[in-house]
């Protein structure tokens, strides 16, 4: 068996570990077009903020490839896949054969067609090189465009680095796809409290400057700046898959089945490039987050090595971490849909909210199942919501407990027991067999 893996990040590395857990002998070749191996993109904002040195950005030791007997081709780009001859072509012209291929090419930042967007001093934040560019940028005034997770983390990092920062977002709130209005306004206050100017409902319309960017015109005002971070979103790197004739999903990611197989024999896809079934939304989604890339890489790797492992589906989850001095977590659906009177296939959507001065908790229920959870302030038990969403259990009379301060795992054990067919893992069984 010959394995080839395209990509060197979360999904790819996890797939290597999964393959090796089953098959220690076959050859694995890995291609990644970035020179720096084994670093975690999630940490780039911390690097920009000068909180983490480069050597702490790795998520695996530098001996990883050696330890796992992987032939790594770093800085080498794959330019074509031929599913008929089962070969890939690298940018140095070499062809390599595979029996099993994983496409874990991730995504790339979207560059909007704003006049002047090609001026110097305007960067996305995705690669190590981008982080270096931002880290080394001269000047004191920064603008971050797009208040998604990466935008918010970037603006706080730049502030911590000592810059003056404006955050520009064309929609009406920060983290518009991650938090609802209430949670978002708590977070916004925190961001503003750090001294960042937050401009929502404002569109970036033109960059000015002779060569290098010196100012930005938005739909409302002009903002002088020496540095711009563009973070309006990412789009999956599907070009290889597309030209090889693989099926592409309706949202523009590579279509995969529940074993992470693409439409072509022997070819799998995982991570930010893949379009998967979302458990909470009950439809296709590209959940471009680290935990999903890891899970999918693992499932792909095990199946590539001949195991039969099914992916139960993806689930979006975001945490704002320690960035704003108050934890905030959002899982699954952000807001209950209001279309069709909030009814879908006979099931009612409902939101249950509890808020106090500095905490906020909201559940989105579909029928009797949780499909979304938002927690601000008090977040230690957030994972209980994650597992209840993942396992799709009816929470019935447990809603008041789930909303209360008293929530803890042992209090919901009766519920877990009721659905013991869905909680077959040993870690749950051990607790159920304790005489309770």
């Amino acid at each position: 068996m010959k394995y080839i893996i395209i990509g060197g990040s979360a999904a790819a590395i996890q797939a290597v570990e999964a393959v090796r857990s089953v098959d220690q002998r076959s050859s694995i070749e890995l291609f990644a077009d970035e020179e720096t191996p084994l670093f975690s993109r999630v940490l780039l904002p911390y690097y920009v903020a000068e909180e983490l040195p480069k050597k702490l950005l790795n998520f695996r030791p530098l001996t990883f490839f050696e330890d796992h007997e992987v032939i790594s081709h770093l800085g080498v780009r794959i330019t074509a896949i031929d599913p008929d001859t089962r070969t890939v072509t690298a940018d140095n012209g070499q062809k390599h054969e595979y029996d099993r291929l994983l496409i874990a090419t991730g995504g790339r930042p979207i560059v909007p067609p704003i006049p002047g967007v090609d001026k110097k001093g305007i960067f996305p934040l995705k690669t190590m090189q981008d982080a270096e560019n931002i880290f080394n940028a001269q000047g004191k005034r920064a603008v971050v465009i797009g208040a998604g997770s990466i935008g918010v983390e970037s603006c706080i990092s730049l502030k911590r680095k000592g810059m003056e920062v404006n955050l520009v977002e064309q929609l009406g709130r920060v983290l518009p796809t991650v938090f609802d209005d209430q949670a978002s306004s708590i977070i916004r206050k925190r961001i503003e409290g750090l001294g960042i100017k937050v401009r929502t409902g404002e569109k970036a319309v033109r960059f000015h400057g002779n060569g290098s960017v010196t100012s930005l015109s938005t739909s409302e005002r002009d903002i002088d700046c020496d540095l711009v971070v563009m973070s309006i979103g990412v789009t999956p790197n599907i070009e290889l898959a597309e030209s090889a004739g693989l099926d592409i999903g309706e949202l523009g990611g590579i279509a995969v089945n529940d074993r992470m197989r693409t439409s072509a024999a022997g070819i799998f896809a995982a991570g930010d490039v893949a379009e998967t079934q979302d458990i909470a939304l009950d439809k296709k989604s590209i959940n471009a987050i680290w935990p999903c890339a890891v899970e999918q890489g693992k499932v792909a790797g095990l199946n590539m090595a001949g195991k039969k492992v099914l992916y139960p589906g993806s689930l979006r989850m975001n945490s704002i971490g320690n960035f704003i001095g108050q934890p905030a977590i959002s899982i699954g659906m952000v807001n209950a849909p209001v279309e069709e009177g909030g009814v879908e296939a006979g099931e009612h959507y409902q939101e249950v909210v509890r808020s106090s001065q500095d905490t906020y908790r909201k559940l989105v229920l579909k029928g009797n199942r949780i499909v979304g959870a938002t927690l601000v302030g008090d977040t230690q038990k957030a994972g209980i919501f994650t597992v209840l969403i993942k396992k799709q259990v009816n929470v019935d009379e447990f809603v008041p407990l789930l909303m209360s301060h008293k929530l803890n795992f042992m209090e919901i054990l009766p519920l877990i027991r009721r659905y013991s067919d869905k909680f077959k893992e040993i870690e749950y069984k051990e607790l159920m067999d304790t005489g309770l």
Partner: protein
Amino acid sequence: MEVIMVDQRKCTGCHQCELWCANEISSESKEMPASFSDEPQPVPRVFVEGKQFALHCRHCPDAPCVEACPNGTMSRDENGLVFVNDTTCIACWMCVMACPFGVINPYSTMKLAIKCDRCRNMGYPICVEVCPTNALQLAERDVKAFPASKA
């Protein structure tokens, strides 16, 4: 691997395990009552919950916290124990969001995810040692008794 098993019938909810866990593992002074006034406050890694049940990290064979951690800080040692490598934790709370049992404490003051590592560096878990009713026992994980598990 050995895990801590809890006999619910014996747990009286006396919180000795919590108290000693905080004192032995996370306090500076390691002596009560001096440790009560340590800064930052010592925190336990075991929680007496519900109708009296001491809950720890279950060291899941397929641990969601390990999969969620973006930099390998949450990892598994050669004995199967899941632990936090304190020096690299960035306090992103991704693990907190993933742990189904809610036993990871997002400790903001120290910017550190805190959880039970079954006292992997001490030889013997302190909670098991101090539990006055033997409700806590160290036992070999009985993989055969629960064949449904993917372990």
